[in-house]
């Protein structure tokens, strides 16, 4: 599911844009140095394929509903993480421009949610170890399903974090997670099954193509991926937790709303509110959060709580805990990958 502009605050959108732009720059610089140049048209044409494939539905037996390919994982398998990340970004950009899927500000979030997780986490750390060097049909199936499910769970969680951090929607964190994750479990299963089906088909029709892809994959060093991962985890952990950890519980948040007063309700302080919104309007960029909170309070002459109400609280404490959490997540992911890698050969 795409994150939408309307649910996003510019601060969160900007942070995610920065994260995605960094990853895009990194990926394309990596490609420039390693690219055997036949990838250039391959990336573009495969992106067009994914774009078209996303609009073809198949009926899911027994449910009366229909599903389709998402494409992130299959691109990662066919192109490798860096090229795949660029391809997904371009698909999302076209969707944002032509179908307003998500929107321009939310594009950063969407590239991160739908590109980073499948390409840089699920493919190298879940799909590759599980599928192994010479994948059998069964292993392709398991690897794709697990990788796709995990990828979409992460993506959905990203949407939740971004939405909650933006504070435009009132949906409490807990309930939103409970809504989004199960839906995306189903979507992930479909995605995994379709990806696997396609890979099996391709494997049968063009074994030679597969061998080459695997070889490419083998020679690719994991270090940059891990570096990228660490960077991303820091961005997510550090950046987002400023917004998220400040109000961990949406319910509490809305309770605060009840007690707090809003400008609309108090039209009598005309000039003050004008000054206040003047202050605010120059603060829509992320760096707002680095401004001294005191300054805001004194300038507008209103209690700080009111001024920053729709804005996340920044405190060194939450940032540090966010970084710590991000670091722990990264360790956990590494551990899981290690375990999977150990187990993969014994499965064959």
């Amino acid at each position, binding site marked *: 599911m795409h994150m*939408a*502009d*309307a*649910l996003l605050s*510019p601060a969160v*959108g*900007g942070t995610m844009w920065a994260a995605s732009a960094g990853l895009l720059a990194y990926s394309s610089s990596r*490609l420039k140095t390693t690219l055997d*140049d036949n990838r*250039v*048209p*391959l990336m*573009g*044409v*495969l*992106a*067009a*394929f994914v*774009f*078209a494939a996303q*609009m*073809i*539905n*198949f*009926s899911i037996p027994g449910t009366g509903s*229909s599903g389709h390919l998402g494409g992130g994982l299959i691109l990662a398998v066919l192109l490798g993480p860096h090229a795949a990340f660029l*391809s997904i*970004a*371009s698909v999302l950009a*076209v969707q944002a421009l*032509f179908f*307003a*899927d998500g*929107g*321009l500000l939310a594009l950063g979030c969407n590239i991160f949610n739908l590109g980073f997780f499948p390409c840089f986490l699920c493919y190298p750390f879940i799909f590759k170890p599980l599928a192994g060097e010479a994948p059998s049909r069964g292993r392709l199936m398991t690897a794709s399903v697990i990788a796709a499910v995990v990828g979409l769970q992460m993506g959905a969680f990203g949407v939740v974090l971004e*939405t909650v951090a933006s*504070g*435009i*929607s*009132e949906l409490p964190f807990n309930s939103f997670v409970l809504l989004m994750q199960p839906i995306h479990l189903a979507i992930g299963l479909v995605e995994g099954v*379709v990806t696997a089906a*396609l890979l099996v*088909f*391709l494997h049968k029709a*063009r074994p030679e193509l597969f061998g080459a892809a695997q070889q490419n994959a083998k020679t690719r060093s994991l270090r940059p991926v891990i570096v990228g991962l660490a960077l991303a985890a820091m961005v997510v952990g550090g950046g987002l937790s400023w917004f998220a950890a400040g109000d961990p519980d*949406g319910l509490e948040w*809305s309770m605060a*709303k*009840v007690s707090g007063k809003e400008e*609309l*309700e108090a*039209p*009598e302080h*005309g000039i003050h509110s*004008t000054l206040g919104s003047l202050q*605010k*309007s120059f603060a*829509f*960029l992320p760096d707002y959060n680095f401004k001294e909170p005191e300054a805001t309070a004194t300038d507008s002459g209103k209690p700080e709580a009111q001024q920053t109400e*729709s804005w996340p609280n920044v405190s060194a404490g939450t940032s540090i805990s966010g970084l710590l959490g991000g670091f722990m997540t990264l360790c956990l992911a590494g551990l899981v990958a290690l375990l999977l890698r150990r187990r993969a050969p014994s499965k064959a």
Partner: protein
Amino acid sequence: MGLDSALHEIRHLDDLSSKDTPTHRLDARAKVLVTLFYLVSMLSLGRYEVSALLPFAAFPLLLAVQGEVPLALLLRRAALALPFVIFVGIFNPLIDRAVHFHVGPLAITGGMLSFASIVLRSLLAVTTGLALVAVTGFDQICRALGRLGMPTTLLVQLQFLYRYLFVLADEALRMLHARVQRCAKNNHPTLREYRTLLGSLLLRTLDRAGRVHQAMLCRGFDGQMPDLRPTTTFGPAEWRFCAIWGLFLIAVRILNIPQHLGNLPLYLGGKAGGLFP
């Protein structure tokens, strides 16, 4: 969205963008920058702001009118983008029940305000994005982004994607038609059929990519796309466009014009209540 209608929608926007109006002729960088500034300033409004959002409609409206983009198209598309936003926003009225003011007997809660605000934001963001594409064209937007610092690899990517989208989508459509022709009912393919449909399409896609690459090599491609010459310059018209809209956006962002209008009697009549007692 089905492939059929998706392709049609893209072609339609593509058609509109090949018109020739003064707005179309502006350097794409100006339009892209103003659009981004627009989105940031509009979306940075507080979540209970409804009236303050209204003046922001001026930008997409004027862009559409000057660029001869049918408004109905923009609104129809904007409506299509609403479901997810409503799905997430619909909880606001249920959760945030703090009464902000009364309109007659009706109590307006914060949730209602923020829900209305979300819907309005979505409509504005979507119409603006689409208007931008319709008066600029995909290719020009990509180039503008390239000239503003987007990596070349990504730029080339986007152009390839756009080019082959039409070829592949047409191929896929013909395959779907061929399938439907041999089916008694017009239903979605089963997973098995889907696999082989997409699989065949993927095989052909891979072949095509190989041929395209060969064609590029035959014309001297050495891994570097030749520098695409800028076709437009950032002249006085562009500066004027940026300045006017920049000032306008700052103004409507700072001053809640509708509210000030509403409060006009209040300013005139001193502290005697207001529109919303």
